[in-house]
């Protein structure tokens, strides 16, 4: 988690377009570690939750198949400029991160 998550959210008509870039190695657990000879342990975001104005709009479950430094975009109809979008991820080690932005 060298850098915090980046979120952008803007209105397009009556729908908020939300784009997010997370910072995470997303290791599958299937890759050999050249240094140790064993496998690099699985280390990936397993759950993502997004809320708009305090209401949950998306709950996602992920595996290691999502690319490193995950990009995610979704749309929320009925959201309004000025409302807060909050995105939280939890990974398989119990680590977590949250960021929020205001819909412009």
């Amino acid at each position, binding site marked *: 988690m060298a850098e915090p998550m980046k979120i952008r959210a803007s209105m397009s008509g009556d*729908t908020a377009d939300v784009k997010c870039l997370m910072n995470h190695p997303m290791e*599958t657990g*299937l*890759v*050999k570690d050249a240094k140790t000879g064993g496998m690099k342990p699985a280390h990936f975001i*397993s*759950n993502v*939750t*997004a809320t*708009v104005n305090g*209401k*949950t*709009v*998306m*709950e*996602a*479950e*992920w*595996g*290691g*198949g*999502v*690319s*490193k430094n*995950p*990009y*995610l*975009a*979704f*749309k*929320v*109809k*009925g*959201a309004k400029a000025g409302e807060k979008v909050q995105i939280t991820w*939890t990974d*398989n*080690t*119990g680590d*977590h991160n949250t960021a929020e932005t205001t819909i412009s």
Partner: protein
Amino acid sequence: MNILRRNILKGAGAAGAVSVAVAAGLMKPTVAFAGWNKAGFESRDLATSMGAIGANAATPSSDVSVKAPDIAENGAVVPVEITSSIPGTDSIAIISEKNIMPLIAVFNLSNGAQGYISTRIKMGSTANVVAVVKAGGKAYKSHKEVKVTIGGCGG
């Protein structure tokens, strides 16, 4: 005294027994915080992965579109955009048929979230990217073949 018991007793007044035990590395946290489809995500068999997300009865639908490159130069980062115009879409799942573990992600949508997800996935080799959409208790699917020149699973 057993370490776990000692930590629980120590932490009981503070952040709570669960988080203390987690911090001590003695408990697996994933179960405590949120659901995670372990059977689905750890499956190495396509049919099992599809079954785990309730996709066995999914009917092909032209109202679900999978936008992905015809040729992905880098299998580690394949952009995938799924759109569903089926009313009441409440879930979108992504499967990469030939990955060692085919199930990539499941997105549950509510409170105005539309049938739209854009993300980037890993693909081990040329395969179909399948989107499974749930709406009104029924499952629908669509797919797009992506040719992968350099496999993205790091092997």
